[in-house]
């Protein structure tokens, strides 16, 4: 399965809906999407990972890169994820402390902390 990406705007947040597998082959597409959004002035991103079947450290690296980019503009990058197998890799790497992870897009959009 390949990676699918779509974006939409809710208020000042840009939702990036990701589906499929994020690995060493597909992660560059996600990176390009995040870079493009930041270059276009979208600094408050919500990455919806509910449709993600697989995520590895390459994908984590891209998300960290996205976080660095939005933070350079006082922005935010929030994740939406309920899947235990995906959450596990965030826990293993200590990234649960770095990313705000929300159970739904609505909660991520409403979050302000």
């Amino acid at each position, binding site marked *: 399965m390949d990676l699918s990406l779509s974006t939409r705007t809710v208020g000042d947040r840009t939702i990036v809906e990701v589906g499929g597998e994020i690995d*060493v082959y597909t992660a560059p597409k996600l*990176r390009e999407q995040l870079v493009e959004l930041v270059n276009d002035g979208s600094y408050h991103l919500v990455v919806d990972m509910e449709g993600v079947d697989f995520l590895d450290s390459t994908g984590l690296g891209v998300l960290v890169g996205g976080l660095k*980019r939005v933070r350079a503009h006082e922005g935010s990058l929030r994740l939406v994820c309920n899947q235990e197998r995906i959450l596990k890799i965030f826990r293993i790497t200590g990234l649960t402390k770095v990313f705000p992870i929300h159970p739904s897009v609505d909660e991520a959009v409403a979050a302000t902390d």
Partner: protein
Amino acid sequence: MATVELLFSPLPEHVRTARLVAAAVARRSGVDEAVLDEVRLAVGEACTRAVGLHMAHGVEGPVRVSLIEDEKKFAIEVADEAPHRRFSVPGASVGTAPLSSSGGTGNGHAEAEGALVPGARGEIPEPTAEEDEGDGEMGLAVISGLVDDVEVSADENGGVIRMSWPTAPESLVP
């Protein structure tokens, strides 16, 4: 010999194939369903790292994945042919050349691995020109967090990551 052996060109698009094959053989060998996700992730990380090392060192030979069914365990060995100068503790780097990929912005690999190791600093450094490159150490950190039985060795001719998981008694395998 290994139960199943897979050789693939060191390209990112083949890592998924290795994951699928490894998971299929692991399932057949009696590895618990609940652990198959870990097998898939661990073998993917090991192969990603091997591909990165091959690309960084210009090694065109294949990455070799050996899937070994034993009486009580299922083992995976992922072997690369890249010259390793020294081997890795978290934070150390293996090899010197940055990874690069063939398309787009040319940096489809791990970023900012320092922030990803448990216990590492929580703050994120500012972006720099070189920010987007990793060296596979983050993948190793994930593997060591996932797999209890893992062994990594390397010399100037290449490296091997060996991992194993217990299998259920045969009577329980459908």
